Structures are given as structure tokens and as C-alpha cells.
């Protein structure tokens, strides 16, 4: 298969061959980063940090890993605006979903 055919085909599908190659290169970097961050996650566990610090650190690393997956594997770095707006709306609904049940059991908050 010739390179020009590759380029033409990929371009027709909405992704130039160069763009595909860029995503593949990025995928390798992200893969390495995810492995290193997984090592940090497990390593932090064996440090036996205070509970609050351990939770903060673990969630921080997980959020970083999740962002890398979403940005590069799911191509969110170069996505259409409509998808971003949809995700913003999801986040706006997701945050109360996560917080509301917890707030209702907090003694110092009185919901009337």
C-alpha cells in the first residue's frame, strides 16, 4: 500500500496520516506515563501516609491518569466543541450527584 494511498484514505476518514501518527506517538508516551503513575499509586500505599493525605494523593494520581486517557486515548485534545459542551453538562450534573448524598449525612449541615 503506497503512502499516498494511506494519506488519502486517512484524510477521507477525517484524520490525516500525520495526525494518526501523532496520536500513535502520543499513545506510547501516555502508556509510559500511566505505568509510572500506577507505580506511584502502589508505592504511595506502602508509605502508610496519614489517611487524608493518602486519599488526596491517590485521587490526584487517579485524576491525572484519567485525564491522560481522556485527552489522548479518547482524542479529547482535538475534539469538536459539541462534545466538550456535553461533557461540561455531564460534569455539572455529576458533581452534585457525588456531593449531595454526602452532604445530607454531614451533622453540621441542616437542609431545610
Amino acid at each position, binding site marked *: 500500500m503506497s503512502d499516498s494511498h494511506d494519506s488519502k484514505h*486517512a484524510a477521507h*476518514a477525517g484524520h490525516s*496520516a500525520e495526525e*494518526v501518527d501523532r496520536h500513535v506517538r502520543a*499513545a*506510547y508516551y501516555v502508556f509510559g506515563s500511566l505505568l509510572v503513575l500506577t507505580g506511584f499509586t502502589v508505592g504511595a500505599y506502602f508509605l502508610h501516609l496519614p489517611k487524608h493525605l493518602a486519599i488526596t494523593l491517590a485521587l490526584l494520581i487517579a485524576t491525572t491518569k484519567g485525564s491522560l*486517557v481522556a485527552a489522548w486515548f479518547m482524542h479529547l485534545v482535538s475534539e469538536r466543541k459539541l462534545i466538550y459542551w456535553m461533557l461540561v453538562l455531564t460534569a455539572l450534573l455529576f458533581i452534585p450527584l457525588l456531593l449531595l448524598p454526602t452532604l445530607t449525612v454531614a451533622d453540621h449541615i441542616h437542609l431545610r
Partner: protein
Amino acid sequence: MSMEIPYTVEARPDTGLTNGKLGIWLFLASEVMLFGALFASYVMLRVGSQNWPPGSTYLNIPLATLNTVILISSSVTMVLAWASIAKHDFKRFRLFMGITILCGFGFLIVKYFEYSAKFHHELYPSTNTFLAIYFTLTGLHGLHVIGGMAVNSYLWGPGSALYKTDPVHFMNRVENSGLFWHLVDLVWIFLFPILYLL
């Protein structure tokens, strides 16, 4: 009357997306809410509990770490499968999609050993709240792995016939299946620390 779904190859002018891609992102948004509700349940149960056992009391951290590496690797092979088909290399697509499916099997086999060990020690969802939420979250995640494997296997096997007649449509299907597979990976990235390590 034609029953064909429109805009599966060309982007819809008003959204700038194919209908398939818009559909899969709407589905993924609903998945975020589904797992979000369960994460909220986890937080509420944990905050409201007098005693919450560390995950390592019941769970096997080395096996879960292995499963994390398997799922991360499968995400990379999924990207390589998509890139191969985008560059019109069907053989490489089959190779990488095959590895992705095998990684899914690997994940489930490790999960089988984990679950078996629990049942062998008579640890069930009904044993305590921690195990109830553990089995619920990992069980639902496992079902998603099986679902993703089913779609990937279809695209690897009979579904790949579409490549001969409409390669761009096929590539879009691979991309959409990949988006779902990456979400499965993303959910596990959060499940691993909160269940096993905290």
C-alpha cells in the same frame, strides 16, 4: 423506505460529528452518571461507617496491579488498532484488535481468581458493606469489560466484512468501540485505588 441510519460516514453539518460518534459520547455521559452514582454510594457508605476496613484486608493488591497494567496495555493496543485501520492496514488492525480482546480475557481471568478466592473464604456481598460495594462496583465494571469484548470481537470477526464495502464507516465503528473501551479503562483507574489501596 430506507432504514439506513444517516451520517454514519460523513459528519452531520450542524453537529460536525457523525451520528455514531455523537451517540457513543451521549452513552458515555450516561455511563459517567451510572458509575458516578455508585461512587457517591461508596463515599456515603464509607463516611457513614464506624469502621471501614482497609482494602488490603480482603483484596489482593498485586493481582489488581496486574489487572491495571493489563487494561492500560489494552487501551494502547486499541489505539494501535484504530491507527492501523485509519492507515488502511487491515492485517495490523486484526493483530492489535486481537491483542486487545486477549487483554480483556486476561483481565477477566485475573478477576475470576480474585472472586474465587473470596468465595473460597466464604466472603460474599452479604458479608459486610465493604464487600457489598466491592462486588457491585467490580461486578458492574466486569460486565462492561465483557460488553466491550463482545463489540471488539464482532469488529475483529464478522463485523469486519464492512471494511471491504465501506472502510470509512468501519473505521468509525472501530473508533466508537475504542471510546467505550477507554472508558472501561478510565473507570478501573479510579476503582483500583479507592477499593484496593485506601
